[in-house]
């Protein structure tokens, strides 16, 4: 009998310890934001687009301030000089061969950016997850050798791109290692997997991510930050339409 009482007390104590140690979903998302949000970023990226067994590679240089201003210039031979400028929820594209700047709007926003699985609309979203979703911690598990918190996010705004998301957040580094993105109907639309994280200064940052479209066979986009500088001073002139066409 003593042994049973001891076992129950031990279990209760362990549970209490876990409950005390387990952060809330809001705390986890805040920690993720701390890691992944930046005041400014400058990077050189490499994008691999795979569709139907064929892979295309695109490279780019980009600079961004917060989530509202971004400037991307493609450097691979086929798209050299193609530039994007994001200002809030508006997006412009510059075509060097035609020397023309076009605003991406309407149904074009649903198209994949440069043929990738990331739509222009997704690229324009700037609200944080905590603003768009209610989150609950569903548990803790191992994911590809890392301990992760499993979070279920349910859209609290009907304008959120996805009705539900399942996130797996590294329980020690607080980086999102995977995200399953669901439609309102419950259908899985996209999967995002973080393939590599790197310690930059004091924060862990995802530097290689793969996104796959679950409505197409063999359709995925991997994005790698080849070089990255966080929180560096950026010339605000970079984010003007006049600079885009220069």
């Amino acid at each position, binding site marked *: 009998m003593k042994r049973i009482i001891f076992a129950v007390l031990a279990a209760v104590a362990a549970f209490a310890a876990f409950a005390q140690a387990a952060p809330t979903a809001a705390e986890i998302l805040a920690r993720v934001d701390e890691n992944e949000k930046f005041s400014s970023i400058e990077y050189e990226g490499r994008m691999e687009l795979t569709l139907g067994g064929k892979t295309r590679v695109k490279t780019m240089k980009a600079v961004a301030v917060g989530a509202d201003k971004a400037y991307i210039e493609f450097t691979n031979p086929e798209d050299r000089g193609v530039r994007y400028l994001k200002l809030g929820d508006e997006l412009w594209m510059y075509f060097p061969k035609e020397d023309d700047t076009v605003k991406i709007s309407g149904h074009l926003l649903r198209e994949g950016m440069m043929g990738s699985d990331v739509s222009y609309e997704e690229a324009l979203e700037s609200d944080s997850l905590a603003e768009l979703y209610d989150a609950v911690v569903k548990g803790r598990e191992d994911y590809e050798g890392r301990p992760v918190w499993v979070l279920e996010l349910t859209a609290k705004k009907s304008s959120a791109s*996805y009705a539900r998301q399942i996130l797996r957040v590294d329980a020690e580094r607080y980086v999102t290692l995977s995200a399953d993105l669901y439609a309102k109907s419950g259908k899985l639309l996209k999967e995002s997997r973080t393939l590599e994280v790197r310690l930059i200064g004091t924060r862990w940052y995802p530097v290689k991510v793969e996104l796959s479209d679950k409505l197409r066979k063999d359709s995925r986009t991997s994005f790698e930050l080849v070089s990255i500088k966080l929180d560096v001073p950026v010339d605000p002139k970079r984010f003007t339409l006049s600079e885009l066409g220069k």
Partner: protein
Amino acid sequence: MGTLWKIAFRNVLRHKRRTAITGVVLMFGIGVYIMFGSMLAGMDRMSIDSMVDYSTASAKVTSPGYLETMSGTPLDFGLDNPAAIEKAALASGASGTTRRTAFVGQLSNYVDALPVMAFAIDPATDGTVFALERAVDAGEWFPGREANEIVLGRKLAAELGLSVGDWVVLSGRTRPGAENADEFVVVATVDAADPQVSNSGAYVSYGAAEGFLELDGLVTELDLALPRAATLDRALDEADALAAALRAEFPELSTRSVKDQAADYLAMRNMKSKFSYVMMLVVLLIGGVGIVNTILMAVYARVKEIGVLRAYGMLGRDVKSLFTIEGVIVGAIGSLAGALFGLALTWYMVEYGIPVGVFFQDGGLDMGNLPLTGSMYGEWKPLDIVVGFVFGVVVSFIAARIPARRAARLEVTDALRFV
């Protein structure tokens, strides 16, 4: 003059083969001209009919906000009271009305995905305005056995390897802006004359779209039909009148007739018709050259005869008149035959048409606004028949004058010695 006409008639009848050759040249020239005009008018009618039947309707009512951003098919601007507009449209002579909400979607068979121009439609009333229901080539028009039913363009379905009864995933953004995707069963495919419908058209009922897109009763466009008019110009004018009547009653809305919606095409049509007149002029000139040549040959073949006539005392101006009359008679016979031939060709074009599907269906030929299926019909153009006939007679007159003048100038002795 009476004697000259008698001689001319006798000569025309005497030289049957020559008369026949000249007449046939004229007949073909004028007949082809008349048929060409009918065919061009028919092509215009067919293109506009295709737009009316599958996209523009005779007139379309939207909110001004929707019109400004129409290319993006936004789900932000609806019609507040479509029932009132429908009632007014029917009172203004519309023969049918239906509601539609366009949205951009993506269709996936889990292997491939294609962008589609999708519409939420009312299956019960769509057929009173559009020809989609009549274009079903396989399956059944929204039988209502499943909650999520979809009708697809024939080529779109073929490209995704889909048949009637297959399930497909339709994805799109809801009205508030969230991604959604759901499975729909293909209940029918449509082989529409409008290539855009066949290539990328996807249609779901309002019943299914309401939940899928969270429409909350949103109707972005109201489409209106008119009874079929006898001619294209009348059809355009009647559509304009209907739109004007609705604009007067609902000034806060955007009401556009097919003439407004197809303004670019119609402007192009005007340019095209100018170009086609040039082409037809070329056809007639070729015919004219043929006539001149045939009559010239007739004069040279009869130089000795001219010498004899002059030797018997006929004056030079009489010879000129004789050959001119002969030319005009031959021209009139040929022009009449040409007008009749053109009438027959036009009648065939109007009644039976030319099947276009065999030429373009699987060839992937870009025919612009021209439909890819069915037959291309002609239109009656009475003015072209009159123009063709008059042109034939006038050209024959001018063509006969030149050799006739030459014949009149010949010396009697030269004419008699002419080999």
